[in-house]
């Protein structure tokens, strides 16, 4: 049996290692209790001074025992040993203390601790700026923030969305009875607690409840709750965030207690709960006392010492000194005495303590040293003695001789701070209450109420009655029960208690700035003198002091240190704590894994993927794919041994010289019907559709009301009051919402209806000089002669036996037919066209070739050549703006704004690099003078750039200030590598400028 394990406590042995050394714990242990049982004093090194640190608390408040579990892909950094349940084979190591906790190079810096005041990093490492990255690397490594795994997480995580009537947070005494009252009414109840067992403080209590020992009473109540079908009980589940409209998030740890990597389903589950009513029974944190060297291993919270003794059967030392400002901590002395270990003394800052527990301690013959402070702990890696001295009534001065008490354990208690975190998430501002020496939750901003210790009610009787009322009230407000209690009051032992003393900094014989460090925030080494120094340096706001000193910035988020820190600040500012106020708590309450937040939305489920009906054919042909929005589009179709450039050269030449085929199914398609359809469409586009006859198509540009191009595409008149609007692939959803916005909110009198039919149709674009010959082979009922079926016409017909719409529209500048068939026939029609085109060497091409071909023609791609700040005139597309439209279409007025008629706006031009094989990088900045000093005057940028096999040289589209009047000028693109590429400004139409090829 380990040296500190009590003989009365036994269980199944569990082997584990800590920093490479083997130990044994027992079932039910946390890593912290097992380490204490094995007498491990030093569990880590502090952040700044690398001081040795031991286990201080027993729950979420633990600042020192921060560990990393395991190694490799499943490793988890930054866990609190107090919250890690022990399992067979657990491997843990300290996250800080490089290279070892017992010999630490940073300890050398610790020796110069006085050289590292608050703001040290700001002051020292800011200059020279370039070296910050170097400093940061060193600081991080030395300070030790744990190591993130470099491999993918092998575990899977889940999310669950739920509604409930009453969510009870915390399963201590208040939470348990609240859940019972609510469940009895029939309300759907969820009760969540971060610990493995329900019961909270009662699990370590020696009190009697309803005549039986508290842990037994908890067990029977939990069994009673489990019998309700309308209650969900979530142990190992931390409610870590409270968001708008009573939306709360719970991290449910399903298998963490079984091992590093889950072998049974999801490791953790993120529950997203919308609760009608919430009961916050989150308890309270005991507050440490701030005295000199209060960070030496062996100094602990009084309640933690009791918890280790009573719940885990671990005595973390031998000779105990209790240091307190209140009656509550006397219980620890009783617990310690009961297990037969020595209580050296209870040091109480109050001059005349006389409550029931005090009397019980005195009756045991334990010395109570009243009116004294424990002003300093001494020892290096373990407490050896405590220095005790009389202090004045106000607790501000040492008034007499110092006495030394030999001891190896100091249990301290400065009272309790309600855990107001979740209430604070809702925007409720915590309020200082001098009577409890703590912040109470502020007025509710949402449908919640606090009960028990989280509301500042610390006695068990009060917790139980408040919890019951809160449960009944929450149920009633969610529509269940009448708010009256369903269960009789619970009998508990009652003690009379004397008021505690408010003491946030224990005086020393030396002044705070001269005394040995009195730590406020252990994790980040913030001391009382540091806070006072911050005030002397001019900081007044609690939010500023927090950031300057790093108070509360650790992974424990100041659960222990914040109140003491604020009180010390208030004192230094000579104002009240209420005036000083508190910082705002924000989610997460405790650290939450990214895995749980991501859930299943990872890898191939990260985002939905959309495939066209021809997708499998593309895969079979070895296409490389490009993501366009959620669509997977063929990018290019490489043949054996081809590079991408070789493939797109071949594809492009095939279109220019014979025929190519493109899967254009992803283009957005919106079916528009109604008697006012033409009027509506005309209001949305820059040009008019009022006279567009059935069988005709028109290209249009859509603007936002600010006059900037938003989308473009062809709109076809299918019949009277019936149109089909094509949008860009990426813009489809946005355009539909845009149409609906105007119809619903501005012109509800227009009768027009929109239906997205994007996925209903497969579109195969057959393009090139031989396109007509290909179509003719599979379509006999459309007269394909250019006299009757000319450019910008469409026809109904039958293609390879399938009813089809064939559009003569062209994005390549070649003779083109876009064959649209219902998507179910997509692959059939595609293969029929491929077969028909075989004799012409029909070549499938992807988006890259499509981009090159359209760029050769100077056709813009919205979102690539435009960026939301381009008008049609900027794009040299004035021709698309209807000048005589009766209705002031969306965006028209803005085209006359002083800013949109400026002559030096960025305008679309072509760029031809002087070295005609050089391809400009897209996004490169354009300057007029390459020799000017940096920062150069930037005149525009390259929007599209390719090598054009058809033209035999590279081409680019760019927007350049006043570009339309600069044809022939040479501009420069300075690159990051120091080169500067010279190009001539040319027309944006490189190929077939007269547009003769698509009119054949």
């Amino acid at each position: 049996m380990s040296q500190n394990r009590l003989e009365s406590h036994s269980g199944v042995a569990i082997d584990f290692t800590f920093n490479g050394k083997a130990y044994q714990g027992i079932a039910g242990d946390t890593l912290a209790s097992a380490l204490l049982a094995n007498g491990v004093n030093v569990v880590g090194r502090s952040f700044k001074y690398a001081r040795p640190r031991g286990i201080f608390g027993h729950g979420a408040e633990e600042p020192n025992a921060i560990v990393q579990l395991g190694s490799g892909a499943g490793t988890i950094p930054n866990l609190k040993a107090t919250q890690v349940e022990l399992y067979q084979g657990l491997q843990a190591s300290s996250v800080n203390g490089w290279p070892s906790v017992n010999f630490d190079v940073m300890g050398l810096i610790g020796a110069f601790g006085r050289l590292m005041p608050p703001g040290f990093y700001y002051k020292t490492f800011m200059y020279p700026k370039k070296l910050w990255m170097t400093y940061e690397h060193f600081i991080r490594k030395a300070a030790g923030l744990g190591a993130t795994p470099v491999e993918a997480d092998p575990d899977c995580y889940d999310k669950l969305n739920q509604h409930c009537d009453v969510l009870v947070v915390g399963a201590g005494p208040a939470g348990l009875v609240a859940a019972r009252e609510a469940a009895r009414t029939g309300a759907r109840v969820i009760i969540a607690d971060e610990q493995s067992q329900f019961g909270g403080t009662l699990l370590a209590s020696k009190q009697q409840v309803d005549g039986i020992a508290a842990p037994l009473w908890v067990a029977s109540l939990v069994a009673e709750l489990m019998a309700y079908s309308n209650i969900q009980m979530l142990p190992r589940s931390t409610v870590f965030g409270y968001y708008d409209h009573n939306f709360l998030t719970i991290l449910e740890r399903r298998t963490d207690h079984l091992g590093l990597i889950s072998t049974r389903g999801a490791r953790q589950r993120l529950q997203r709960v919308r609760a009608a009513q919430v009961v916050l029974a989150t308890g309270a944190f005991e507050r440490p006392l701030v005295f000199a060297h209060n960070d030496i291993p062996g100094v602990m919270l009084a309640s933690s010492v009791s918890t280790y003794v009573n719940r885990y059967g671990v005595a973390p030392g031998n000779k105990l000194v209790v240091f307190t400002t209140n009656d509550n901590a006397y219980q620890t002395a009783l617990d310690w005495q009961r297990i037969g270990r020595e209580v050296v003394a209870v040091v109480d800052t109050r001059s005349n303590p006389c409550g029931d527990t005090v009397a019980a301690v005195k009756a045991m013959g334990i010395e109570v040293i009243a009116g004294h402070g424990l002003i300093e702990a001494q020892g290096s890696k373990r407490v050896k003695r405590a220095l005790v001295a009389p202090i004045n009534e106000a607790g501000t001065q040492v008034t007499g001789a110092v006495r030394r008490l030999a001891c190896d354990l100091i249990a301290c208690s400065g009272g309790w701070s309600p855990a107001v975190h979740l209430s604070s998430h809702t925007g409720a501002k915590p309020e200082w209450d001098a009577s409890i020496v703590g912040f109470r939750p502020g007025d509710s901003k949402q449908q919640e109420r606090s009960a028990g210790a989280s509301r500042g009610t610390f006695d068990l009787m009060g917790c139980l009655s408040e919890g019951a009322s809160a449960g009944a009230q929450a149920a009633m407000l969610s529509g269940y029960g009448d708010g009256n209690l369903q269960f009789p009051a619970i009998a508990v032992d009652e003690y009379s208690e004397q008021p505690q003393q408010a003491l946030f900094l224990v005086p020393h014989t030396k002044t705070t700035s001269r005394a040995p460090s009195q730590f406020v925030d252990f994790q980040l080494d913030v001391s009382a003198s540091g806070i006072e120094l911050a005030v002397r340096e001019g900081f007044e706001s609690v939010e500023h002091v927090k950031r300057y000193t790093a108070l509360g910035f650790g992974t424990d988020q100041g659960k222990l240190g914040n109140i003491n820190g604020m009180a010390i600040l208030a004192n230094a500012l000579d104002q009240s704590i209420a005036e000083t106020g508190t910082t705002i708590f924000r989610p997460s309450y405790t650290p939450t894994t990214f895995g749980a937040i991501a859930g299943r939305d990872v890898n191939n489920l990260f985002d939905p993927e959309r495939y066209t009906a021809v997708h499998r054919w593309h895969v079979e042909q070895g296409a490389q794919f490009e993501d366009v929005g959620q669509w997977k589009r063929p990018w290019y179709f490489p043949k054996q041994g081809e590079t991408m450039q070789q493939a797109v050269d071949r594809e492009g030449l095939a279109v220019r010289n014979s025929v190519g085929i493109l899967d254009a199914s992803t283009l957005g398609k919106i079916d528009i019907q109604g008697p006012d359809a033409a009027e509506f469409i005309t209001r949305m586009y820059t040009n008019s559709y009022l006279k567009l006859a059935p069988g005709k198509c028109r290209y249009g540009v859509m603007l936002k009301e600010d006059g900037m191009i938003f989308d473009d595409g062809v709109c076809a008149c299918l019949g009277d009051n019936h149109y089909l609007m094509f949008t860009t692939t990426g813009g489809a959803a946005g355009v539909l919402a845009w149409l609906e916005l105007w119809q619903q909110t501005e012109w509800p009198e227009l009768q027009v209806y929109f239906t997205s039919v994007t996925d209903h149709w497969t579109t195969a674009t057959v393009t090139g000089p031989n396109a007509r010959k290909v179509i003719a082979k599979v379509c006999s009922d459309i007269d394909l002669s250019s006299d009757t079926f000319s450019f910008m016409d469409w026809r109904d017909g039958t293609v390879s036996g399938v009813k089809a719409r064939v559009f003569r529209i062209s994005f390549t500048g070649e003779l083109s037919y876009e064959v649209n068939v219902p998507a179910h026939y997509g692959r059939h029609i595609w293969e029929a066209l491929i077969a028909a085109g075989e004799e012409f060497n029909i070549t499938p091409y992807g988006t890259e070739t499509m981009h090159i071909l359209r760029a050769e023609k100077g056709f813009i791609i919205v979102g690539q050549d435009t960026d939301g700040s381009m008008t049609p005139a900027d794009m040299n597309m004035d021709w698309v703006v209807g000048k005589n439209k009766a209705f002031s279409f969306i965006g028209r007025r803005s085209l006359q704004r002083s800013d949109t008629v400026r002559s030096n706006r960025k305008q679309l031009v072509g760029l031809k690099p002087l070295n005609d094989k050089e391809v400009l990088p897209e996004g490169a900045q354009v300057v007029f003078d390459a020799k000017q000093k940096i920062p150069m005057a930037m005149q525009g940028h390259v929007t599209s750039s390719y090598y054009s096999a058809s033209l035999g040289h590279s081409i680019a589209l760019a927007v350049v200030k006043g570009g339309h009047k600069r044809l022939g000028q040479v501009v420069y693109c300075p690159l990051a590598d120091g080169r500067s590429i010279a190009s001539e400004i040319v027309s944006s139409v490189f190929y077939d400028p007269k547009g003769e090829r698509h009119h054949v």
Partner: protein
Amino acid sequence: MLLIYCPHCQENREEEEFSYGGEAHIVRPLAPEALNDKDWGDYLFFRTNSRGIHHEMWYHAVGCRRYFNATRNTVTYEILETYKTGTQPTITGANS
């Protein structure tokens, strides 16, 4: 995450079903060309940016695809009412 009552579906639905549509009750001028640049600019760019009561459009994008209006407190995020486009709010702030 907000819980929003869609007046068309007549149900409370999660915020992720909706998208935000900006301030409500901004009427497009009937004769834009008659406005000078300043007045047109006011219509285009300027919003009340209310602290407190705010009337705004929401779009039930993955639900009924209808726009409606909400009266929301921009400080507390409380949604005080939702109402159909073309109707008026019953709750108005001092400055709205």
